[in-house]
């Protein structure tokens, strides 16, 4: 069962969708629902959530997020794409822009685990490498979780 706050998170997205419902809104909602399930389940294993974000990406489009990661903590970067997503990628870079990790999957639910050797800022790139069928964009959601 969803926690109280996750239910509110879903509600918080409603005004914008009610005002101007679009395919992008629906896609992001689907992606967030998928991601929220992963977050809730992760709590049973001691994971907690730093931040969850969502976006709509066209094929080849990306978003980059700056994150502070603590030395010694375990981090799991997770994302979900909606049904229009094909291969969604997560790529982690250090502060100098050097790639340090990326997901291994070719699907729409990538995950990257990382334990920083030192506390620092990193860049997380969320990338729509491919979409499914004739889709021209996909809703995606990404979370930074830790334990």
């Amino acid at each position: 069962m969803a926690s109280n706050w996750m239910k509110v998170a879903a509600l918080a997205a409603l005004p914008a969708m009610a005002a101007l419902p679009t395919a992008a809104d629906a896609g992001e909602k689907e992606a967030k629902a998928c991601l929220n399930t992963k977050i809730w389940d992760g709590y049973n294993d001691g994971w907690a959530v730093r931040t969850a974000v969502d976006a709509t990406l066209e094929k080849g489009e990306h978003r980059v997020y700056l994150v502070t990661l603590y030395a010694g903590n375990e981090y799991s970067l997770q994302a979900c794409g909606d049904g229009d997503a094909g291969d969604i990628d997560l790529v982690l870079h250090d502060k100098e822009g050097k790639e340090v990790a990326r997901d291994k999957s070719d699907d729409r639910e990538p995950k990257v685990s990382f334990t920083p050797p030192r506390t620092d800022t990193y860049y997380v790139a969320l990338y729509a490498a491919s979409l499914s069928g004739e889709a021209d964009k996909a809703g995606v959601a990404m979370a930074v979780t830790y334990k």
Partner: protein
Amino acid sequence: MKLRALALAVVLLGGCDNQGEPTANAPADAPADKAPDIQFTAADFANAEKVALVPSPAEMERSLERSGIEQKLASMVDDSPISMDAENKDQIAVRAGVVLADLVLTVKESSKERTIERLDTIKVAIDKLGGGDDVPAQIDELKAQIEAGELTNDELIQEFDELSQVMVPELEYEAGEWVVPLIQAGSWLEGAHLVSGAVQDAGKFEAANDLLRQPEVVDYFIEYVNREGGDKAPDEVVDQLKSTLSTLKTVADKPALGADEVATIHDATGSVLSLL
């Protein structure tokens, strides 16, 4: 709240040894058919979004535990009530952040009544910041569950940890983009104050670099505190916050933190918190 179990496989990734040490430009464990097909540029990094930049108070405490410092931050939280009786919305946002941090950090130790008081304080803050009705309604639902003893401590931790996440879209939509960074600033300042105090008490100053040195986070807060427009009436707390952030920026730019720098962080953060 009943959560389904799911084992999250923790996979150490390419270019990392068992300690997660980055060792190469390209991830060694990326499969051959998963070769990078995009190169991210300096412009991508320069334009990175900062919504996930600031660590949560619970995350700060976990990092403290990992460093070998056993002191619980909850034992250091000043239990004096924090009022939302302020006109300046920047100040209210910072106060709300402090209360949120205290709520998360003390959930295991606080009485039911004190926890509910803090939730009521957050409700007042949301109202004064111009937030919507959804979060306050859910706070009322949560208070009822607490009063009825329906939630375990672990479930409460999850609820409170998620509160800060949920308030982001709610407040950004209803009150404005500037609110969330200032709430985050309040939580981060409280966390930094408590962590620096714990480091001092433990005398474990070698842990300070990994626990307290976050120059990009300080820059992020400075950007919003110094923004133009909105509710920018002169305010003692906001003026002190600017001074504190300037001090923290100077400290964070040092190559390494020692006892003096930890003391500076503790005093500078305390100078803001003491005004709340």
